[in-house]
């Protein structure tokens, strides 16, 4: 019994170590965001700001077009998430339910698309979008984000479709429901939480995306939040730490909030219930 106790203590100690490692950079970011310049310049920085201030946030908005950038990011992320889910859900249904060559090819594409470096795709995309005059435009970015979100969306949605028992669909067919009717009134409601979760994941990845946005958006008023954030860092790597931290903190909030929302959405456990019964 004693060894068990010491093992437990060891486990808690290890867990504490993990918590510190995972949390401290974020806490430091928050701390820096609220520090006045005098404290940021001091050689002995403290964890808790002595004179907490909101000046950094004001200055961040003055220095860079953060509001425009947030609006661009929001448009791109919502657009990409909605379109990706709209086109991925029917395809995922076919991939999960039909054992066809096309379904296999699509699954193959999902796997392979994880492996190719973006640089090999971005150059042709850049040339194509340039010909379509969709460089430096948010709609062009949305098109790229949709395709970029598809592998993961399909991956998730195929899983959710498989979790809907075919017995339910067969039972509906036996009761005389047509195929469309079965899809709309049996499968779709059971799939809804999965679709929402997938859309929110797509939203987060588009909100956070940097590389495509960096290449495709040229002028500051078109750029998304991650690209604008890098403008706070000067050419020599020198940065005004306070506003930088404040802007970075704000840019993270939407992603964190959406993550929290996903947690709640899933708690319903609608799918899990249907599978168990």
């Amino acid at each position, binding site marked *: 019994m004693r060894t068990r106790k010491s093992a437990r203590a060891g486990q808690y100690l290890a867990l504490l170590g993990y918590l510190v490692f995972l949390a401290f950079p974020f806490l430091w970011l928050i701390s820096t965001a609220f520090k006045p310049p005098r404290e940021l310049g001091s050689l002995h920085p403290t964890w808790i700001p002595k004179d907490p201030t909101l000046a950094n946030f004001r200055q961040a908005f003055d220095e860079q077009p953060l509001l425009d950038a947030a609006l661009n990011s929001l448009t791109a992320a919502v657009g990409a998430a909605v379109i990706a889910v709209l086109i991925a859900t029917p395809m995922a249904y076919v991939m999960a339910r039909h054992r066809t060559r096309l379904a296999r090819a699509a699954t193959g594409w999902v796997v392979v698309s994880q492996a190719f*470096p973006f640089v090999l795709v971005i150059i042709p995309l850049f040339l194509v979008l340039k010909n379509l005059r969709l460089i430096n435009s948010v709609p062009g970015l949305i098109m790229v984000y949709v395709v970029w979100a598809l592998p993961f969306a399909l991956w998730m949605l195929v899983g959710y*479709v498989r979790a809907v028992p075919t017995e339910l669909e067969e039972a509906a067919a036996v009761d005389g429901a047509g195929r469309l009717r079965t899809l709309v009134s049996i499968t779709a409601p059971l799939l809804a939480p999965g679709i929402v979760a997938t859309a929110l994941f797509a939203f987060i990845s588009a909100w956070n995306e940097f590389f495509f946005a960096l290449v495709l958006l040229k002028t500051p008023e078109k750029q998304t939040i991650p690209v604008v954030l890098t403008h706070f860092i000067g050419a020599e790597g020198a940065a005004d730490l306070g506003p930088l931290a404040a802007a970075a903190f704000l840019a993270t909030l939407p992603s964190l909030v959406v993550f929290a929302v996903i*947690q709640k959405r*899933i708690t319903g456990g609608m799918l899990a219930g249907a599978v168990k019964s």
Partner: protein
Amino acid sequence: MTSATVRKRSVKRSARGAPGGGRGGGGGARDRLVDHGAWFLVLPALIPILVLSVGPLLYGIALAFTDSQSGRTEPTQWIGTLNFQDLLHDTLFWDSFRIGLLWAVGVTVPQFLLALGLALLLNENLRFRWLARSLAIIPWAMPEVVVGIMWRLVYNPDAGILNETIRDLGLGDGRDWLSGLATALPAVIVVGVWAGMPQTTVALLAGLQNTPRELHEAAAMDGAGAWRRFRTVTWPALKPVALAITALNFIWNFNSFALVYVLTSGGPGGRTRLPMLFAYEEAFRYGQFGYAAAMGCVMVAVISVILALHLVGRLRGGEDA
């Protein structure tokens, strides 16, 4: 269920089902290409995939055999394998490639080991597990650019918490981590490990919850110690997930861009210039599209070889299981 479970589900399924392809227990499974109704369902996704993913990929491979440049007036010409021959003698590229491999291995291995430890802890019935789970997810929800910025603040030579802690502990004055020739790459690797831990932990946790509990209890009853139980019961069940997630991590890490772009932009003196950064500069700073595409091809080729080796290992693993 938590958000962790969502991810878990997808990862679990992907690990089991995906590589084998459409093995879903389809009610209406037909062996035609697709039936009529299905075309209608598939096309909206298929067209963007072909136009914006498969097409550009093939176009990109073709570009590698041309002298395509940005903003040139003369027409682009086929130049055969000239780009690849140049690449062969481009020591800067191979330096960058070596750094890329070092980075990918240096991040993937500790990432896996740390995530495994955390997943095992989270699988225990500990208090504050919920807190640890939510914290473990935070790096995942953050934009990579913010992760980079955050660690710049940590590593900052004067106002950073790392040097301050070192000074407090009386271990000297600390240093400029990100611009030191010797410390830049390790410092960046630490950030890579930190940023990738959530996905790995959640995937492994899903795998752990798949392991048969009865088997665990039976082994404990037979007097098997913790290590033995891990080796004989947990690891065999976890192995497929572990292989899948390390493979994906390796690929993602090798192709990573934003973190290092923000942290060091490839400096000091190219010590952290990953292949992606190199190719990006070649394409969009110097406008050498053809040459950069050739670099992309080489990266794909190397990744494919590594992936193939990995798959062989995975099949072998399947035999003893």
